[in-house]
């Protein structure tokens, strides 16, 4: 029985599996990002998105591991650089970096026992704040932190709940996909 589980395989095969899994989740993240852009805007005075792509990042974090999650998140931002330009890329990158670092810290700190709800909501809110702090540094927004913060938290809570629900629904099928055994030809 040949298993593609990273524990049982040699170096080359492990990295191929890892690469394929990251690629699948990155593709998922990109498609969710496009779907995100097609949805009607949130009724918020600040430009906020649903953050559906975080579903793929969290799936990578829970089902695969922290390295995979970091790769999916950062590669998604790199893709924004390529398709929407430097400024959008930097805004995306700052939010993603804050979000993924805090989610990794929580996941490590609780040794993987944190609930999906907390992981998702924290990810969404830190993503919002990361982008907003970047825009403050870039002088696009000034001195409006108090006015904006409640919206960032409230909408982070709602969109975080949405992605947590989506993740819960997709987690089982994704795990089946990732743990599928490949039998050698004999």
């Amino acid at each position: 029985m040949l298993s593609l589980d990273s524990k049982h395989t040699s170096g080359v095969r492990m990295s191929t599996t890892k690469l394929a899994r990251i690629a699948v989740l990155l593709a998922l993240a990109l498609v969710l990002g496009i779907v995100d852009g097609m949805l009607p805007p949130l009724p918020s005075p600040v430009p906020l998105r649903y953050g559906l792509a975080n579903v793929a990042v969290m799936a990578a974090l829970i089902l695969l591991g922290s390295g995979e999650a970091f790769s999916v998140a950062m590669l998604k931002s790199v893709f924004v650089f390529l398709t929407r330009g430097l400024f959008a890329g930097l805004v995306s990158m700052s939010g993603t970096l804050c979000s993924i670092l805090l989610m990794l810290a929580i996941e490590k700190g609780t040794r993987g026992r944190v609930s999906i709800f907390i992981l998702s909501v924290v990810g969404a809110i830190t993503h919002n704040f990361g982008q907003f702090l970047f825009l403050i540094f870039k002088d696009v927004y000034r001195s409006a932190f108090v006015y904006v913060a409640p919206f960032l938290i409230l909408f982070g809570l709602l969109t975080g709940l949405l992605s947590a629900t989506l993740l819960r629904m997709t987690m089982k099928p994704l795990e089946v996909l990732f743990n599928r055994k490949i039998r050698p030809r004999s």
Partner: protein
Amino acid sequence: MLFCRKCSKQEDHERSDDRNLVTHDDKPSRAQRVFFRARDLLFLVVLLAIALTFFLLSRKDVSSSSLEAQVYIDGELVDRIVLKAGVDQDHRFAARPAVRLHQYADRTIAVIVSDCPDKTCINTGKIGKPGAFAACVPNRVLVVIVETGTTDSTQEVDVVT
């Protein structure tokens, strides 16, 4: 040979130190992550409390203070529009002909025309509280409301008496 007690399959099961037989229950799948714990409610309450605090801080009574809308283009202050009751007019800027502001008689201002793709600045609507802003990120235009002191007549009387 090791067999799972429940599913009678051999693979995927490891011998643990104290038992010969291992079931699925001993090695839960990663997809069985808890969705919501009771103690997450505490986190939720704290979060809502923080949001409410910021919300209350941002809702100051400004009926007696003088306000101005500062317009930034490319991060530089290009205009200060004093928001006086009863003034209703358009504002245009040479640096950004594609963006037009409108000042309303109820001491608010709004971005009404912009050529940006997402129209977030227009969807923001009328703004009139200190700290409120409308931003067009693609055009690098920012309108922010600033409090420039109080014009409260009763306060002046208090100082005199």
